[in-house]
């Protein structure tokens, strides 16, 4: 096969084969196709078969060769192409120049650079989250004094969203969780003659750990995601910008009612969830172990204690605030597109779940240190 490229003085000849330029050549380095790296030419002559029908593949290949040879002054002269194609190539040359000046994207292969950029973005994101947390904390006194710029209707809507509409799913999840704990506990403890302690297991595990965590996860998937999607959509529609132009910070008008609503309702949802978790445990354990409901209830009452309830309720309050803050944060930082809404929603749920579990670990360490 004749070579594709032939250098003759300052003229480089590109020979278009009879069957045209192959599409796969576009993906290969030109050096592999015979164009030596650093080739200097002031003229590119394209030698195509007579009456050649130019395709976009041919044009793209010629354009790639032009880019390879062209200096910053775009002084390369291209010959042998129809005038119409010549003007298109000219446009492509200008476009390529613009892309190089406005670029800034990281090279795909450079893992270290990408890891660095990821770390910087994560740090900036964390800083913005802390700023959001700080702004909410500063606004809390104003909210408690009923002077925050919040619409009452919005607050009621949030309370409904976080409250009674979430009750069925909270009940189902907790009753199942209580039942599963009781079943596993009953099977294992019965062998040791300690079946009655299933009530302790279910009671303490539910009240202190699992109900707050499960409720937080349920509400992260339900309410936190909804907060993120709403705010991300508002961001995309410039509704948040519109709010800012009236001198009303989005944090005060949009974030504060959401954080307040979820923080206030989570402890109540916790109590409600506990009832179902304990009932689930009782429903499963009493028939398996042959215990009376009264005996199981007495054992549960003795096991739980006020401290466990207090810890569970405190966790619920903190988890509620964190889920709301993360949902709002992801919504506010979303990119202004449909994809941005989806990404914000996913990110809100994932981040909330991780944060809730990490915070639970912190609670465990603190409670242990305080011997609670």
């Amino acid at each position, binding site marked *: 096969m004749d070579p594709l490229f032939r250098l003759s003085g300052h003229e480089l000849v590109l020979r278009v084969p009879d069957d045209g330029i192959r599409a796969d050549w576009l993906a290969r380095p030109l050096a592999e196709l015979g164009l030596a790296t650093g080739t200097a030419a002031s003229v590119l002559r394209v030698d195509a078969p007579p009456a050649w029908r130019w395709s976009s593949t041919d044009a793209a290949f010629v354009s790639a060769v032009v880019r390879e040879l062209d200096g910053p002054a775009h002084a390369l002269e291209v010959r042998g192409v129809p005038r119409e194609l010549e003007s298109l190539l000219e446009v492509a040359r200008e476009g390529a120049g613009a892309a190089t000046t406005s670029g800034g994207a990281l090279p795909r292969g450079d893992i270290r650079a990408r890891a660095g950029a990821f770390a910087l973005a994560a740090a900036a994101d964390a800083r913005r989250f802390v700023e959001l947390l700080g702004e909410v904390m500063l606004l809390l006194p104003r909210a408690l004094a009923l002077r925050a710029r919040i619409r009452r209707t919005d607050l009621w809507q949030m309370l409904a969203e976080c409250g009674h509409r979430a009750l069925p799913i909270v009940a189902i999840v907790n009753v199942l969780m209580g039942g599963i704990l009781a079943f596993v506990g009953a099977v294992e403890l019965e062998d040791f003659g300690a079946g009655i302690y299933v009530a302790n297991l279910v009671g303490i595990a539910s009240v202190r750990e699992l109900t707050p965590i499960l409720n937080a996860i349920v509400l992260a998937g339900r309410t936190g995601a909804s907060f993120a999607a709403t705010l991300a959509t508002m961001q995309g529609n410039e509704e948040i910008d519109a709010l800012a132009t009236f001198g*009303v910070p989005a944090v005060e008008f949009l974030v504060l009612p959401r954080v307040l609503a979820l923080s206030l309702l989570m402890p109540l949802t916790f109590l409600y969830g506990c009832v179902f978790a304990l009932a689930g445990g009782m429903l499963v354990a009493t028939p398996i172990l042959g215990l009376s409901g009264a005996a199981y209830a007495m054992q549960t009452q003795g096991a739980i204690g006020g401290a466990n309830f207090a810890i569970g309720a405190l966790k619920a309050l903190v988890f509620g605030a964190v889920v709301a803050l993360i949902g709002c944060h992801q919504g506010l930082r979303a990119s202004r597109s449909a994809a941005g809404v989806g990404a914000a929603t996913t990110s809100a749920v994932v981040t909330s779940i991780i944060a809730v579990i990490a915070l639970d670990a912190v609670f465990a360490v603190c409670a242990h240190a305080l011997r609670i």
Partner: protein
Amino acid sequence: MATPAISIEDVAVGYDGARVQTGVSVDIERGEIFAVVGDSGSGKSTLLKTMIGLLPPLGGRIRFDGRSLDEHMQDGGAPPFGVLFQNGALWTSMTVEENVVLPMELQRYATPEARPALARFKLALVGLAGREGLSPASLSGGMRKRAALARALALDPSVLFLDEPSAGLDPLTSRRLDRLITGLRDGLGITVVLVTHELESLYSIADRMLFLDGEAHRPVALGAPAELARHAESAKVREFLRTRTPLAEAA
């Protein structure tokens, strides 16, 4: 000499430290309709966002009535302007009337009893009387723009910023909107700053314009549109301003 409604002094604008436009300096007089024009990607919207405080300036300063935006907004005060966003940006969870009332509520403007009446008056000004109870989703593009204009007027601002008010509207609706903008300026003495691509609007309502050159990253022309079309130093500006349809030229 009277203090200009807006004073822009050697302002640089851009994102993430990258300067899209530099050396923007202009005084906009009270009651003037001032257009910001330029090629795509030249930074018109970025300049507008910087002027309304959504982006920080990368240099220079912007003053409204001789005071910075921060001074106007200290202690939670309202900015001295209203903004019409390109897509209206109405709050979709509220009715049209609630959209106009909300800024008054949040800024404790007028008495609670007077707010609905004021909102209805502003909606009537833009030709939306009787549509107060509709949701933004049920309005046409032109009506949404007008409702957003009524909302921008909610706090009786001295300056109106309009981001491509004619974008997405048919020519007749665009002309109606132009007449409305001129009417607001004439009737209420409002200073109007608009970002536009549309030459018909530019020639018919703008007193002066500033042309931002996206390649030079700086303004290259300031003056009356018709004057610049003939005598602008920059060939790009002359070409831009002369690109009119044959019918428009014949008219």
